[in-house]
């Protein structure tokens, strides 16, 4: 027992050094060569950081494409989903309210056309993407507010639609912040 304890304490110290100090330091040093230098990649417009590439942002103004509802209001100090169960009546009322808000801001759109991702909160509360359908359904509103032709916006959305990984695996996505940055630059 005493021998085991002695070995245990020494081995713990040695392994803390290797696994919890040297290993993370190694990764930290190597990551300096990665995009963003291991601090997270940022998106810069006119020399100013407007956001982190991976982190979604809140868009509530009609002139921007909206992202998904968020349980943390897109403040990346924390992260969380709503954790609402599928049968929770209070939650379903929230979804119903989101649908109605969307219809008010987007006249001419019918319920059946609203993609599910626009009325449900993401897992992280920081989802930077929406589905291509969710971008397309907002084109008419933005065309009206910004006085830009719908065709031009459609082309912009297509340009910002990322297909499946390697063209084979997973869903297609639209990066909301990048799309909105490009939208601001559109004249």
């Amino acid at each position, binding site marked *: *027992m005493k021998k*085991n*304890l*002695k*070995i245990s304490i*020494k081995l*713990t110290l040695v*392994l*803390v050094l290797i*696994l*919890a100090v040297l*290993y*993370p330091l190694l*990764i*930290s040093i*190597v*990551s300096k060569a*990665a995009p963003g230098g*291991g*601090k*997270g*990649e940022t998106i810069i417009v006119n020399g100013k950081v407007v*956001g*982190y590439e*991976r982190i979604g*942002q*809140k*868009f509530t103004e009609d002139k*921007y494409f909206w992202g*998904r509802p968020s349980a943390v209001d*897109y*403040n990346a100090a*924390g*992260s969380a*989903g709503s*954790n609402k*169960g*599928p*049968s929770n*009546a209070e*939650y*379903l009322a929230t979804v119903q309210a989101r649908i109605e808000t969307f219809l008010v801001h987007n006249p001419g759109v019918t319920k059946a056309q609203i*993609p*599910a*991702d626009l009325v*449900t*909160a993401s*897992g*992280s*509360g920081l*989802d930077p*993407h*929406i589905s291509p*359908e969710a971008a397309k359904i907002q084109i008419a509103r933005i065309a009206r507010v910004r006085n830009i032709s719908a065709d031009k916006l459609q082309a912009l959305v297509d340009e910002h639609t990322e297909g499946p*990984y390697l063209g*084979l*695996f*997973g*869903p297609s996505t639209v990066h909301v*912040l990048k799309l909105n940055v490009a939208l601001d630059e559109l004249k």
Partner: protein
Amino acid sequence: MNTEILGIIFMFLLTVLLAYPLGKYISKVFLGEKTLTDFMAPVERSIYRLCGIDPNEAMDWKQFLKAMLTINLVWLVYAFFLLLYQDKLPLNPDSNPGQTPDLAFNTAISFLVNCDLQHYSGESGVTYLTQLLVVTFLQFVSAATGIACLVALFNGLKEKTTRNLGNFWSIFVKTNTRILLPICIAGAILLAFNGTPASFEGKDSIITLQGDTVLVSRGPAAGMIAIKHVGTNGGGWFGANSAHPLENPNYFTNILEMVMQMVIPVAMIFALGFYIRNKKFAYVIFTVMTVGMLWLLIPTIVSELNGNPAIEKMGIAQATGAMEGKEVRFGPAASAYWSIITTIISTGSVNSMHDSTMPLSGMMQLLGMMVNGFYGGCGVGILNYYLNIIIAVFISGLMVGRTPEFMGHKVEAREVKIAMIVTLFTALLTKGFTALAAYMVAHHPDIAWAVKPSGWLNNPGFHGFSEMLYEYTSANANNGSGFEGLGDNNVFWNVTSGFVLILGRFIPIIGPVAIAGMLANKKYIPEAGGTLRTDSFTFGMMTFAVIIIVTALSYFPPLALGPLAEYFTLKTFEL
């Protein structure tokens, strides 16, 4: 074919393709044969010298378990005090507070036992120092503990008659230096180059395009996210775990993290085949486990792709499936796949919020943890499966009227009793504590010491019951995922789940290792015409039947009260 489904098939095939050679490599490492990583031998020798370890010292099953338990006890004390006083220690750029004693108790145990239930959020509940010195460290050594105990079982199976199950210290050290660390270094670098932070800088403050001021949490996360998966740990750097876009930035990293968490559990099955020179035995186990996985996976994918029936009634088409709690870049199919893999192999990391998945998916996730042996966690998966083999051998023996034998050793009353006690005890822990919690919710909802700082349930009714059942099932299976709506950072949950965690870890390790030691000690009986062949597919089916029957009998009642009841109410939901 649908790209989302294709993505899942690709992830699975890639995992198996990598697991086979990895299994061969692992068996060579522990057989002491020549491998690519022999350059680590001098490092290991200096570790042995520094710590006073004789790597060739033989250990019987009792000595082996004593060594394992002693070092685990040291880690528990070490982790508890670091978490308690983390606010007074360096590397805390965000000035996070120290943990309360009950939270530190829960967190230290949780990472010690490879579970990683987190009753805190990574952004605010721990510091960079404890993320590395406690969390990352325990994620390595707890996985290595599981694998070392499995190798003890391998040693028991390999020899005809032996007392020696191998040297715990040397197997444990080699697991870290030869298996976990190399895979993690490669994985962490890939993550860092895909956007996961790895520097020591604290939170950043930015003004968004629309003009809001927000903070962005960061930190040296990539290294921990690698071992969190490779060691089937599951505890995330950020609160939202691998749903967080910095923890799992894109579809590629999703494939990477998926493969990293599943590859060792599958490789250990093949390693078993190479190690004891009976590959067919390994193939049978792999087949049974894969069938078990598909049995849980297919209904989950179907129910997630179909979307929420209640939202469908509102007139929303849900062409992309159920999206609450899911990320667009993964989609519902890859989220469903992850939710099943993470529950069957005891990782417990998530890329979508399980609390918001459909009722049937929730039930499949629960079943994955209740069985806890379809692939299973690093090492411990096969130990759990071994218990089922012992029970299947016993029942088969009764059916044909012969003394049951397994790999040339008589399986007698003592071994079967241990297997039965361990199996029944896990069901007792899960259901007993769920019943206690349900009683507290119903009859004492206002006791301050129990419910502060927040209420328990995020959802009413059947789903609320599922939240409590999920917590104890996850704790007992050492899984670590949760129906995270549960308000679990309070004395009641921290203390009760802490006890479930530690019992749910060590009893299912001690049991199988003890059985293996006792069997290996017995006289070897050569195979004869009437011997029950345990490497046949017939016996595989027998084991599968045992698993299904034991699980169904143990858990049908709580599953009926939680997910099944919710499923039927949702079907008849009216606005």
